[in-house]
Each structure stands twice: as C-alpha cells, then as structure tokens.
C-alpha cells in the first residue's frame, strides 16, 4: 500500500507537469466535443488523434488519449439528455431517463447528475485501477467466451425491465434488434446473410444509424404528428443550465455505488466495455428499485446508475491493457497502438520496468475525472443554451445533424437512407407502443452474444452444459434468469397483497407499492 501511494505521488508530480496537464485538458475537451458531435464517436476521436501522438513522448501521448477517453464516454450524455440523441451506444440508457427528465423541465438537474455520476464513477474506477489492478487482472484472465456470453445474456435479460407496459412488445423489439444485428457478412464463414444482393448491407446495419433514426428522427416525427392535437411536442420547460447536485446525490448514493461497481466489474471483463456496463447497471437498478414502474419516465436513479457505470468501466478496461497487455475495449486497443508505436509493450513487466509511466497514467485518469466536473459543466452550459432555440429551428437542425452523423459513418448515402427509414420505424413503434430500447439492445448486444456463443460451442464440442458448469457463467446466467422472472414474481406478490388489502375487516386500502414520495428516484422541483 505504501509503495502504491509513493508511486502514485510520483505519478501526480508528473501529471502536473505543464505539458502533461495541458494534454489531459486538451484530451477532455476533444473527447467531450466528439461525444457531442453526431457521428463522431469517442473511438473515432481516439483514432483520429493517434497520428498526432507520434511526435510526443509516451506519457503526454497517453494522457491525451486518456483525456479523450474519459471525456468521450461522458460527452454523449449531453446530447442524450438535451436532444434524445445518444452520442454513443453507452449513452442510450442515459437518454431513456435523462431526456424524460428534460421534458419534465429537469434538464439542469439531469445534466448535473450525469456530470457528477460520470466523474465519481470514473474517479472511483481510476482509484481501483491504481490499487487493485494486478489481482483483478489475474481473476479476469480466467474468463473465456463462455463467461462473456453469459454476461451479455445478463445484459439482454434486462429487456424484462425495459418492457414498461408491454412485455410482449419488448420481446418483439428485442428479437427484431437481434435479427437486424445478423444482417451482413457472417464473421466465421464469410456467408452473406439477408443482404438481398444490396452491396452496402454486406457490412451490416451500423447500430449508429439505428440509434439516430429510432431516437432522434422518430422523436421529431412524433412531435410533428402530435403537436397539433396538443398531446405532445411541448418544448422542454425550465432552465437547462446544469447545477451542482451535491446534496441531491446523497439520496441517490445507492444507484451511484451500484452503477460504479457494475461499471468497474463489467469494464474489467476484456471486451465487455462501457456499453454493456451501462445497460447492465440500468437493468440492475430497475430490478432493485422500489419504483420500477417509473423507469423510462425520467428516473434519476436509472440515469445515475447508467452514467456512473459507463465511466466506471474506463478504469476496468485499462486494467487489462496495463497489467496483461490485452486491450479491454476498442478504445484501449487504440491506446495499445500508442504504446507499441513508442516501442513499449504493455503488460506485467511494465510495472517493474516503467513504474513512473504507469503511475502517471493512473494519476492522469484520476485528474481527468476531477477536471471533467468543471469542463463537463462548461460544455453542458454551452449546449444547454440550445434549449432556448425555438422548436422549428431546433428540430430542423437535429434532422440535418442526423443526416451528417449517418453520412459520416462511411461517407455513404445508403447509411443516411437507413437512418431516415429507421426514423419512420421509430415513429411507428411509438404509435404501436412497442418499446424502442430493447431493439437497440438487441442490435448492439446480439452480435456479441452470437460470436461468444458460437466460439464457445466450437471450443466445447457443442456442449451446452458448459454454461452452467463454469461458476462465473452459472452465476451470471442465474442472475439473468432471476432478472427475467422478477417482473412475474413482483406481479404475483402485488396481486396477493391487493387481495389481502381488499379482504373484509381490513382497513386502509393503499396499494402494495408505495407512491414513492421523496424516494431516491424523485427529481426535485425545477427551480425557475
């Protein structure tokens, strides 16, 4: 412990060197902007800055990338909350709750919560990285595709909590998403599936087109269609300038702790990353919440859990890179490229041969997450002023940005067509009460599940029992089964309690579920 603290002290000394500090700041700004701009993902921005790091030393280069990484993971939540456009798939659960809070006039509250939850999740994750990296990495190294498949199934099982009013609708949406994820060239055999001879479908349906279409375009069409009848399309009320919700965070400490823990744990699984973390944390939070029925309507607990989880995963993903030389996510894979460009092989020897560099990286991550609070507020304030723009202008430019976001994927108008068609589908799904989030989950997690499942089957001679005989996999699948069964159990319990309450001789007819007044998920009233 003393050695770690001493090394960390040295790391902070290095991180506060003017050039290194500047790189962290610059990286955060680039990352947040990349997260906000449609079509420019956090991963794209890390790839784009890689050539600029050739002439730098390894430490400033990595600090720049770490800044982009931490800022980028958070940045997409700003547009998710303000415009229902998740910057990255990991920001999708943030949009589910944050945008609803915004529509209730709680944009400032939602933005503040997202910033604080991201910063705290990232900070705790960075501290865990500094203190527990080596033992955690040894544990995670025992995982195979069997465990990864089970973790992804756990993520998919959270569809049970995303169903809202219609479980069958959620399942339809999920399977449709999983099917969409199979379109394109299959990775093991190179067989084209459901491309119907259309060339651009060979590379599959990019989930960004689905995200942008279903959420942003679908929302605008819904607003245009319902505004005249006075049922929706109400512009967000209240000020959208974020405020520091330090006191508001205390009642939300449960979601914050659980989200951060899920983020670190799931992020620590190589390949799982921030997207799986945020989905799993959101699903878990709804299951343990006393007011699950309020999820999807602007629940602060769901927002905090998802945001703390996706930033919490950053430290977990770095563990593999630094201690094993295995990138834990796509972003850390690019960082590994930066190491190799500078002639350094990440791995266990890095800790003995270049401890100064390793602990400077740890210190840099801690600093980046602290600085993100200030920069996040500045960025959110800048973008929040957009909320004052009249709806016709805002909606028009959202469509234009969606066009650009889709086109920027592959410089192909086909992606724009797909986005717009998914926009129409998003509107239809809203009209038919088919929940959209499960489809997004299916298209993102479905291909992962397929890859892990088929690889597991090849490795274990099609023996399905391997998923329940390996302990970690069995536990993950057990949790998934519990997640799927829980709504049914809750319904039966509620029915029984209602029967008991309605029985003659009993007074007090309150329902089995409390109204949730003053509960953790309640946003405070908008300050006008």
């Amino acid at each position, binding site marked *: 412990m003393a050695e770690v603290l001493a090394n960390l002290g040295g790391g902070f000394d290095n991180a506060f060197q003017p050039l290194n500090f500047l790189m962290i700041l610059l990286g955060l700004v680039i990352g947040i902007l990349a997260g906000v701009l449609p079509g420019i993902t956090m991963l794209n921005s890390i790839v784009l800055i890689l050539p600029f790091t050739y002439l730098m030393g390894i430490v400033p280069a990595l600090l720049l990338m770490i800044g982009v990484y931490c800022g980028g993971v958070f940045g997409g939540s700003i547009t998710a909350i303000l415009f229902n456009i998740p910057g990255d798939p990991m920001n999708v659960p943030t949009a589910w709750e944050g945008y609803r809070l915004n529509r209730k006039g709680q944009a400032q509250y939602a933005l503040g919560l997202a910033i604080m939850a991201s910063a705290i999740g990232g900070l705790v994750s960075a501290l865990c990285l500094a203190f527990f990296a080596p033992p955690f990495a040894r544990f995670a190294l025992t995982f195979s595709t069997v465990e990864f498949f089970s973790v992804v199934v756990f993520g998919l099982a959270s569809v049970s909590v995303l169903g809202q*009013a219609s479980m*069958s*609708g959620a*399942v*339809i949406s*999920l*399977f*449709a998403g*999983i*099917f969409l*994820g*199979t379109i394109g060239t*299959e990775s*093991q*055999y190179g*067989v084209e*599936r*459901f491309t119907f001879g259309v060339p651009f479908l060979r590379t599959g349906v990019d989930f960004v087109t689905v995200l942008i279409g279903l959420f942003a*375009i679908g929302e605008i*069409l819904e607003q*245009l*269609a*319902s*505004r*005249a*009848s*006075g*049922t929706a399309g109400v512009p967000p009320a209240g000020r959208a300038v974020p405020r520091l919700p330090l006191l508001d965070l205390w009642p939300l400490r449960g979601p914050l702790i659980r989200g951060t823990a899920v983020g670190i744990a799931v992020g620590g699984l190589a390949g799982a990353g921030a997207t799986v973390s945020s989905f799993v944390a959101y699903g878990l939070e709804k299951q343990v919440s006393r007011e699950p029925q309020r999820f999807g309507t602007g629940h602060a607990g769901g927002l905090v859990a998802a945001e703390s989880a996706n930033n919490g995963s950053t430290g977990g993903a770095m563990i593999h890179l630094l201690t094993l030389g295995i990138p834990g996510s796509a972003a850390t894979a690019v960082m590994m490229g930066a190491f190799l460009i500078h002639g350094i092989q990440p791995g266990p020897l890095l800790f003995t041969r270049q401890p100064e560099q390793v602990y400077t990286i740890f210190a840099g991550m801690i600093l980046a997450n602290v600085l993100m609070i200030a920069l996040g507020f500045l960025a959110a304030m800048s973008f929040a002023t957009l909320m004052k723009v*009249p*709806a*016709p*202008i805002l*909606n*028009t*430019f959202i*469509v*234009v940005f969606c*066009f*650009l976001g889709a*086109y*920027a994927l592959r*410089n192909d*108008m086909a992606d*724009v*067509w797909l986005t*717009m068609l998914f*926009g129409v589908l998003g*509107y*239809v799904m809203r009209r*038919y*009460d*088919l929940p959209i989030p499960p489809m997004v989950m*299916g298209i993102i997690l*479905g291909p992962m599940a*397929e890859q892990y*499942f*088929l690889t597991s*089957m*090849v490795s274990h001679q*099609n023996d399905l029992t391997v998923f329940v005989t390996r302990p970690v996999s069995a536990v993950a699948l057990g949790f998934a089964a519990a997640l799927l069964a829980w709504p049914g159990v809750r319904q039966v319990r509620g029915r029984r309690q209602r029967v008991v309450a309605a029985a003659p001789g009993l007074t007090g007819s309150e329902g089995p579920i409390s109204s949730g007044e003053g509960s953790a998920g309640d946003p405070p009233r908008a300050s006008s």
Partner: protein
Amino acid sequence: MGAAGRAALPLLGFLTSIGLFAGTRGLDDMARGDQLGPGFWPRLALAGLAVACAVKVIAELRRRPGNRGAARPEATPGPAPPEPDQAGPARRLAVAIALIMLYVLATPAIGYPLATAGFIVAFMRLGGGRSPWGLAASAVLGTVGLLYVFLKVVYLPLPKGAGPFEAMTVALYRALGIF
C-alpha cells in the same frame, strides 16, 4: 385504433419472420461437420420474433372491448374529450416524411449545400416558422456554418451534386474559402 388495427403490425412481423426463417435454409451449407452454421443465430432470433409476434397478435385480438382504451397509457376514463382534428397532424407527418426523403434523394443530385438550405427552409416552415427573414437567415447561416465545420474541420467529403450542380457547389466552396 381497433384491435384489428393494433394486431396488424405484429401480424406483419409474424409473417415476415416466417418468410425470412424459410430463407435461412441455404445458410448452413458451408457449416463444418457438427458445428453450428451461420444460419443458427438468425433462426433463433426469427423464431423468437415469430413467437413473440404471435403472442402479441393473440393478446390484441383477445383484448376485451372495455380494455382497448388501456392500450395507450394516456387513455383515461371519464367524459370523452372533443375529438382532435386528426387530418392536420397526419398531413403534417406525411409532409415531414416526404421532405426528409426528398432531402436524402436530392442531396447526391444537387449537392449538399443547396439541398440543405432548401430543406432548412421547408422543414422550418412546416414546423411553424413564419418569418421569411428568419427562414432565410437560418438556411444561409446554418448551411455555411455546417460546411465550415464538416468540410474544413472534420474533412467530411459531402456530396457535391451532379453535372452543373457540382460546378456550382465547387464555386460556392471556393467563394467561401473552403477549397
């Protein structure tokens, strides 16, 4: 919307998934030995989709008339509110979709700047924008701003259009100092 109407979409989903399921037969021709082929996973997804759609269709058709209003959460008991004019929103929606499709269709032909400026004016007008100066300013400033950011900063090769429109777009870029 009646029960038949609400059952239409899941029924379409059911029929589509059955049709696609039948189309997966040839996918496993390349599978090695006893390994699962590339058709396994799509079949699993389509079977799940077909079953879920069938359940939804049955649920919609079996729903009692009294419960039909519960399909949408905003339906509340009590005196019926005055029927809103449905033609207006439907027309607005149709025009919005047509404008978006026209925008995507026109961009490769007439170039991004012209298509975007035209779309901004038309879509803002549809959304309720009335001031001609506001519409014109938004179209011009918005398009020029986007061109600077996405061409000069992000280096995104936006469509220039075909034939005379390409020359026009290039001339515009030169005039703006982008090229």
